């Protein structure tokens, strides 16, 4: 499909990192779920790993501008959102799939994605084509006109991914996107991730270490709201020894890093 490339798209970016957090603190209720986190993310697919309660979802919500950080600095797409930047401009470049994905049951998939594309301030003329493309990319084209209450869990998840990618976001945040997808759909999804990660910053939160090993170029490991380790997926695989828990090299690397971190904290 041919489309006009706008000046804004070809303009060189003026920010070194799509996501830049310095000493970031975010509260979940009263609990400080993200505590003095330093993180930089550029173009590529980043896997966000961590045990339950590590602060993955809270970090995602802060990056998606749902919650405001309580302290520290957070710069998204070159705008300091903790210092009263233009949130609207940042949000136009965001795509977000929440962990608990609410939807309107009586809407069809197409209506839902269209409505969110409108809320994302996409020009009216490009919405129908962009919606169709997003729905095709997640493999839901045959169910595009079914009501959302008739969809299975995996299909809903894919509808959620469709709304997240409909505006070709510069920063795509996916919280547990592979929950409910069958193996074949997971392969397709990884393919989609690699495709999007070529020119945007994708952060995928998951606790499936295998997803990270295959689809991610870069791994971010957090625990207790702090950054434990950041590096490539291959480097993660090399961290583990033979006596670490796990069935694959990546899993062993994951458990070795976590164990070392816990040792440092308690020492």
């Amino acid at each position, binding site marked *: 499909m041919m489309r006009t490339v706008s000046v804004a798209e070809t303009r060189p970016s003026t920010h070194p990192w799509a996501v830049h957090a310095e000493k970031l603190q975010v509260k979940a209720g009263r609990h400080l779920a993200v505590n003095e986190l330093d993180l930089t993310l550029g173009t590529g697919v980043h896997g966000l790993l961590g045990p339950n309660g590590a602060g993955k979802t809270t970090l995602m*919500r802060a990056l998606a501008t*749902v919650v*405001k950080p309580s302290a520290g600095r957070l710069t998204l797409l070159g705008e300091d959102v903790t210092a009263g930047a233009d949130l609207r401009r940042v949000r136009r470049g965001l795509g977000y799939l929440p962990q608990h994905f*609410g939807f309107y049951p009586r809407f069809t998939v197409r209506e839902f994605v269209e409505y*969110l594309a*409108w*809320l*994302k301030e996409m020009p009216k003329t490009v919405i*129908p084509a962009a919606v169709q493309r997003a729905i095709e990319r997640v493999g839901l084209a045959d169910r595009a006109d079914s009501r959302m209450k008739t969809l299975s869990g995996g299909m809903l998840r894919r509808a959620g991914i469709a709304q997240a990618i409909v505006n070709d976001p510069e920063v795509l945040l996916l919280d547990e996107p592979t929950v409910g997808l069958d193996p074949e759909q997971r392969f397709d999804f990884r393919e989609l991730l690699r495709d999007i990660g070529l020119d945007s910053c994708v952060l995928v939160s998951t606790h499936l270490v295998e997803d990270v090993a295959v689809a991610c170029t870069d791994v971010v490991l957090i625990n207790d709201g702090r950054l434990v380790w950041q590096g490539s997926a291959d480097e993660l695989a090399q961290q583990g020894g033979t006596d670490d828990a796990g069935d694959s090299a990546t899993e062993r690397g994951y458990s070795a890093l976590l164990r070392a971190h816990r040792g440092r904290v308690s020492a």
Partner: protein
Amino acid sequence: MTTHPTPAVISHYASGGADVDDATVWAVEAHLEVCAECRALLSGAVDPGTRELLDRVAAGITAGITAGPGPVRRRRLPRTGVAARVLPWLATAAGLMLAAVLFEKTFASLPSLVLLIAPVAPLLPVAAVWSRRLDPAWELTATMPRTGLPLLMRRTLGVLITVVPVLAVAGWGTGHSPGLWLLPALGFTAGALALGTLVGVDRAALALAVAWSAGVVAPSLADGQLPIVLTGSSLPGWALTTVVLTAVLLVRARRRPRHLTRTFR
């Protein structure tokens, strides 16, 4: 328009362009795009196998178009999440007004229930347009660039466009002056939005509705007469209140746009 290529060049081009250089092929191609005569020459020059293939493809596509599903009709009014969740509340407000009319027609001795309820009739749907609890996709819609005062005003306007005709029918049916039901309703709507910049629109609207019911509706039903604020002499007061509250809303929203987006959602 360039000069037409010779039939010999066209037939070379049709046979794959092995004996002509690239520049000539491009020139022929560019010319063919704009010249129907030369395209006719070209279709005569291709070999029968290719022509048969093209015919088959054309026939196949025509059959596919006639047999396949038609283009999806686009809805004139796109469905929005807010319309879906506000509809029941609009219906409730309309039902309430209807009940008030019936009540007033039945018990003529009591003070006008239509006038007593009209000010708070838009508040239920206004609370619903910006309520976090009523929006299942709140977590998503909270991250959208289209938010803040323009969206709030748009939705409120939508509610008023639906509720005011209902009020008009009720007011006309019971024979009250339009100012007495319209101005208080607008005043309360502006009040809910202005107070909403502090505590959230849904809470503000509910608080105002409860305060009005407890402070004015209940006492005047007990007394058996309309309160002074719902008589003709208080109309300038209502107009002034509405204007002042709207100004407060605009000033607050402009000064702290981020605050507005957060408390409204």
